[in-house]
């Protein structure tokens, strides 16, 4: 079973203050902490677990700046065998279609049984690259996968639906699956582990290696255009209780009494 996992390095934004830069099309990232995209972390773990059962190899792939190497090293430390880094400034700044086109060019002709990605990236949240890549590679796909059981040349998978419901599907391999958080418990990666993984190879790929023209990648190869970023208007803001834990607790109890909770 040969598995390819697409990963992305993203800034942690859920607890950070986000400001828009001068271009009006990007955010300031200097003070943000970057790590492997949370969904991708689950995807790498799932690949490692499947390989434990089925044998085979795992290759991680990323498209991103030089720093994305850290993300690949992390995935290698988790257990991936090799890595491919689409490391060319001309790849950057594309929409999911352009990104998928570059990934497809890099994966074309590679023999694999499973191609995994995260459901979405925590930064832009498009949730598009995986299924587009499946279309470009002409293989079946399933998104929001919460369970994978390999059964010969097929996989039986669970997809997350709304309201606590799941659907069970059967999918022929090779297939692309986008992995949902919570599918497993990703292993802890130590500094030692990352150091050890330095012996594993990261193959760097430039645009000329893929036979792509500049018109097929980045903004030129995109179907969409990000025209501007702006801060959403705050519609309704909570009344904020101020003071010590004692003070605010008293206020909370008042609310609980008033609203019928106590």
């Amino acid at each position, binding site marked *: 079973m040969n598995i390819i996992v697409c990963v992305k390095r993203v800034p942690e934004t859920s607890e950070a203050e*986000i400001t828009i830069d001068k271009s009006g099309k990007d955010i300031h990232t200097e003070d943000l902490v970057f790590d492997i995209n949370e969904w991708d972390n689950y995807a790498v773990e799932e690949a490692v677990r499947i390989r434990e059962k089925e044998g085979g190899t795992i290759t991680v792939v990323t498209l991103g700046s030089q720093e994305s190497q850290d993300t690949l090293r992390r995935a290698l430390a988790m257990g991936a065998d090799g890595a491919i880094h689409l490391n060319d400034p001309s790849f950057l700044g594309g929409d999911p*279609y352009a990104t998928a086109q570059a990934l497809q060019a890099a994966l074309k002709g590679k023999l694999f049984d499973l191609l995994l990605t995260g459901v979405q990236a925590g930064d832009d949240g498009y949730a598009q690259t995986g299924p587009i890549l499946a279309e470009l590679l002409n293989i079946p796909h399933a998104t929001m996968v919460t369970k994978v059981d390999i059964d010969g040349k097929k996989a039986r998978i669970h997809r997350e639906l709304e309201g606590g419901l799941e*659907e*069970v599907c059967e999918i022929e391999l090779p297939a692309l699956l986008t992995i949902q958080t919570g599918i497993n*418990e990703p292993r802890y990666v130590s500094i030692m582990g990352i150091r050890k993984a330095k012996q594993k190879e990261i193959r760097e790929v430039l645009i000329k290696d893929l036979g792509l023209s500049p018109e097929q990648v980045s903004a030129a190869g995109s179907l969409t255009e990000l025209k501007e970023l702006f801060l959403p208007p705050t519609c*309704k803001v909570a009344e904020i209780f101020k003071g010590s834990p004692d003070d605010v607790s008293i206020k*909370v109890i008042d609310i609980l009494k008033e609203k019928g909770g106590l």
Partner: protein
Amino acid sequence: MSGIWVLIEHRRGEIREISYEMLGKGRMVAEKLKQELSAVILASDAKAYVDKIKKYASRILTIEDKQLEHYNALSYQAVLSALAREKAPTLLLMGHTSYGMDLAPRLSAALKWPLATDSVEVEVSEGNIEAIRKMYSDKVNARIGFRGAKNCLVSVRPGSFPAEIDAAYEGEVISVTSSLTTEIQARKFIEFVEAATGAVDITQADILVSVGRGIGDAENIPLAEALAQALGATLSCSRPVVDKKWLPKERQVGTSGKTVKPKVYIALGISGAFQHVAGMKNSGAIIAVNKDPKAPIFNVAQYGIVDDLLKVLPVLTEKVKALRAA
């Protein structure tokens, strides 16, 4: 050709709410562009759906095929791309839901039509359609343009628009022959299963003490449990807590968990991702504790405390206990 299309979403014989939300927005866009609004229904038997949708669109395009009984990305894509190529609608609206997220990107690539996912607004600017979508943990809005494309796809975040109630069309039903000739083998729907089963029913609670990622560690869950016990409340949580296996799935509030409506909802360390908010926004009163003053949860809560919840929680629990004892 032209037209604004809405892909009707249904599951287990029921039309899903997102369909009506898209029909409402679709009508507004259609009126602005002076184009027709069509609802598109893919099903094994569309009749029951047609009756419910008829007054909300001027045309109802139906494709009936046994292989369309349950949603399947591959069968949906095959018939929808054939239909879209032939009739070339200006805009196709889909839900940013488990079905739409699965289908829309692949359809967009097959048609080479641009797609804006997870959109919260659809605007018309000088005759061009643009979408507004959320990025960076919902803290930033992005305006997405389609580079002059004649046809585009937009997937809509559930709850972004009110459900359509006003429309009074006499929808003309147009039955289209399915383009599926062989049985699709590559992906098959097998069955539905309940992911969250257990003894606790969080939908029945008067008060919910709900914990999120901000609780920090599984070791801190008992602190929230203690408050819930003192209040006679039930403990619930947001998705990250279930993902980390700190609490079971049956406790999860949100789109992929349960929708709740307690008298009081106390959100502890919950940032307020839309998937969570969708499951609790209709609570009687919402009190949020979060150390990030810009957390989106404060846009839905009536009352807030900006502080470390691990400091506030024990004090609040003691005060409630003291009050109960008195």
